[in-house]
């Protein structure tokens, strides 16, 4: 039998620690701020220069003459470049869809399936993230040529999907972890089978993550050079690969024009992926999704 209880019905004095707002802990040190500003300057300098000189009327990258659209006209009149642009857009779209489907399946399955084989798959799926593209490029090249598969846009797409699944899986898993398991149980409680619950509740709830990672994949694949370089066919080639040879041979604002267009696409996409999740009213934004890994 238990010893007599020594009780104190006295309510303990509740010492609430005031939540600290994240204010500066020191006065703003000017050196650090200046350093950071310098960093941002250097960060944007090449981008600004590329854009600026793409409008140069003179064929020079060191002296700006006057504003002109000529290089853009040249770009849009160049059949090869335009077909490369279309090819890149096509590759990115298909790769985005493929990576989204497979990456989401992976994320959902890893959340549900336990046991060592599942964990192994999860780890393997992360390896591409830390593998230099040259390794995956070589591997993909040997894989296709070894099997006698002719290099083409298809091979690029297949390789890009392989590489991109990891990004989708990481981002979606992050969002899945934040969704309480009870939400899915609630769906089942209210009459859903397990798969219905996933379709009607889980997936709509992770939609922001899907959108963010989809846009991210599109941007990454669109800009990707190394992997595409190894597995591309001869014609058409993805845009970065096409201009690579140009870059090595000439220095011309024509490349700047192409480069500016490419950067525009990427920036818009990444900007969207950071903003769109917020539109769904989440407290977390795209940044948390992308950097919180």
């Amino acid at each position, binding site marked *: 039998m238990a010893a007599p209880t020594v009780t104190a019905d006295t309510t303990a004095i509740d010492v609430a620690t005031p939540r600290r707002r994240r204010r500066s*802990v020191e006065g703003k040190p000017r050196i650090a701020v200046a350093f950071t500003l310098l*960093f941002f300057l250097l960060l944007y300098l090449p981008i600004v220069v*590329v854009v600026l000189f793409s409008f140069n009327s003179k064929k020079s990258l060191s002296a700006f003459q006057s504003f002109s659209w000529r290089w853009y006209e040249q770009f849009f009149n160049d059949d090869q470049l335009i077909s490369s642009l279309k090819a890149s857009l096509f590759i990115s779209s298909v790769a985005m869809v493929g990576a989204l489907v497979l990456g989401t399946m992976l994320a959902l*399955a890893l959340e549900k399936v336990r046991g060592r084989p599942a964990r192994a798959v999860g780890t*393997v799926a992360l390896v591409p993230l830390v593998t230099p*593209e040259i*390794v995956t490029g070589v591997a993909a090249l040997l894989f296709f040529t070894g099997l006698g598969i002719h290099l083409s846009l298809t091979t690029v797409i297949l390789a890009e999907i*392989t590489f991109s699944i990891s990004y989708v899986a990481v981002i979606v898993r992050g969002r899945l972890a934040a969704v309480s398991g009870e939400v899915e149980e609630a769906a089942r409680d209210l009459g859903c089978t397990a798969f219905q619950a996933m379709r009607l509740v889980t997936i709509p709830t992770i939609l922001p993550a899907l959108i963010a990672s989809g846009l991210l994949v599109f941007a990454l694949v669109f800009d990707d050079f190394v992997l595409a370089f190894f597995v591309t066919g001869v014609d058409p080639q993805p845009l970065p690969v096409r201009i690579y040879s140009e870059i090595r041979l000439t220095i011309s604002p024509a490349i700047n024009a192409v480069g500016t267009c490419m950067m525009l696409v990427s920036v818009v996409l990444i900007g969207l992926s950071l903003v769109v999740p917020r539109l769904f009213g989440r407290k977390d934004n795209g940044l948390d999704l992308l950097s919180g890994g």
Partner: protein
Amino acid sequence: MAVADDSSTITKPTRRSATHTRLWGWLLLPPAAWMFIFFVSSIVIVVLLSFGHVGVGGRAVFGSSLENYRALWNSTYLTVFVRSLIYAVATVVCCLAVGYPVAYTIALHGGRYKNALIAALVIPFFASYLIRMYAWSTLLSDEGLVNTGLKTLGLKDGIRFLNTPGAVIAGLTYGFVIFMILPIYASLERMDLSLIEAGKDLYHGPFRTFVSVTLPATRAGMLGGILLVFLPALGDFVSAQLLGGPGTYMIGNLIQQQFFEGQNQPLGSALTVVLMAALAVFMVFYLRATQRAERET
């Protein structure tokens, strides 16, 4: 806040029945199959081919000789390997030196602009790496903007920027510093700021506080950043190609040569295997370091 109850914290896994896991296993199958087919097996092919040789008609043939590896054991290749390691390490050091202060300033002094600043930081890095390296090569070339500016300022011959190790390392740093900044920023954000306040009481001085309080607290972030920078930097070839020259070539350039110019795929595979081995060794060190860090917290 809700009191944590029994079953929700106890082994979620054992709640799943065997059939349940099997059902969801079907969902795992397609991505697992894809990864296995396109990724795992392709890596295996690389390793296998590294033991092969160039056969009749220039085609690569599988084999079982160590010829390629023996060929790599000469001063030319070894110089490149060592150089790549040095460049990669130098890149990590530069990224730390540049990235940490930036992350620190934004995290602790960014105030309400924090998110905007991070966004402003992230966006340029998603502009094509190729284009950005190209941009620097045009800026820093002998006829580029920077030298033109320097010449007008009086420096008659300008400075040779390109085709130097410094340019390559700078290019790599520029390309990958974001992967150092984000993890460090994330761990700074997670850190309890009152620790710094407490540290200031204890350590009498911002520098000592930083070293003794902030630095250890961000160890996980730094390790993550080091991993995310070192690995791609080691295998990079674009930076050396556009900003450097044959004297600064890295493993990546050699590999690219073998596959596109030299057409010696087995040798290229061997080079790739060497690179992968270096990466694996580094991963082991990284995992040990993070485990140690976790144990100490």
